């Protein structure tokens, strides 16, 4: 599964994209796995209310299932316009 990070999430984790082998069934479980890895992940994911998630390029939520998902992206609330 590809995991993408944008804006300050990318900066805190220190990379824009990585491949992850995971058995996580939901986004929350994936986040828990990432947080347990290293402190930079723990810092980036410390406040989930400040984060948004997209599954295969569609906005989703942290309870969502990862079944069949190929691309997960984490980023802060968007500030376009």
């Amino acid at each position, binding site marked *: 599964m590809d995991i993408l990070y*944008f804006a300050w999430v990318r900066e805190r984790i220190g990379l824009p994209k990585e491949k992850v082998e995971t058995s996580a069934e939901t986004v929350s479980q994936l986040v828990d796995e990432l947080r347990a890895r290293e402190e930079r992940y723990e810092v980036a994911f410390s406040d989930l209310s400040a984060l948004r998630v997209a599954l295969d390029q*569609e906005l989703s939520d942290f309870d969502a299932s990862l079944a069949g998902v190929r691309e997960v992206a984490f980023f*802060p609330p*968007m500030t*376009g*316009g």
Partner: protein
Amino acid sequence: MKISVQKEPFDLGAEANAFAAGDTSNGAIVTFTGVVRDLVQGDLDMMEIEHYPGMTEKALTKIANEAQERWSLGDVLVIHRHGRLAPGDQIMMVATAAPHRKDAFEAAEYLMDYLKSRAPFWKKEITGESADWVAAKDEDEDALTRW
């Protein structure tokens, strides 16, 4: 419908004229243009706009399709830039064409409200001393509840 996510500047006049030309059933054209605003202190050097290639185009197309379902529109245009921009640079534009102005105005506002908090763009303000990601405002999220 035209959706463009681009690094290059756009020519507002040329885009508006090309958009307005052609379909004589549209009596109303509304355009909105967003410009890089300097900070209160007046020390913004650059604004950097990051986006999510692939998702950005999909999100903008979805928002434009929803506007077309909701209002009687002849056409919709969305252009949004990314990369480094200077104060005064044009960031983005939307245009709507409709037989009547109420549809064109409302659809343009709807496009802007949704584009601000549902299209994956992030702004970073760069001054001589700092580089800060712009925080999303609650009022931008609240603006969606009126639709």
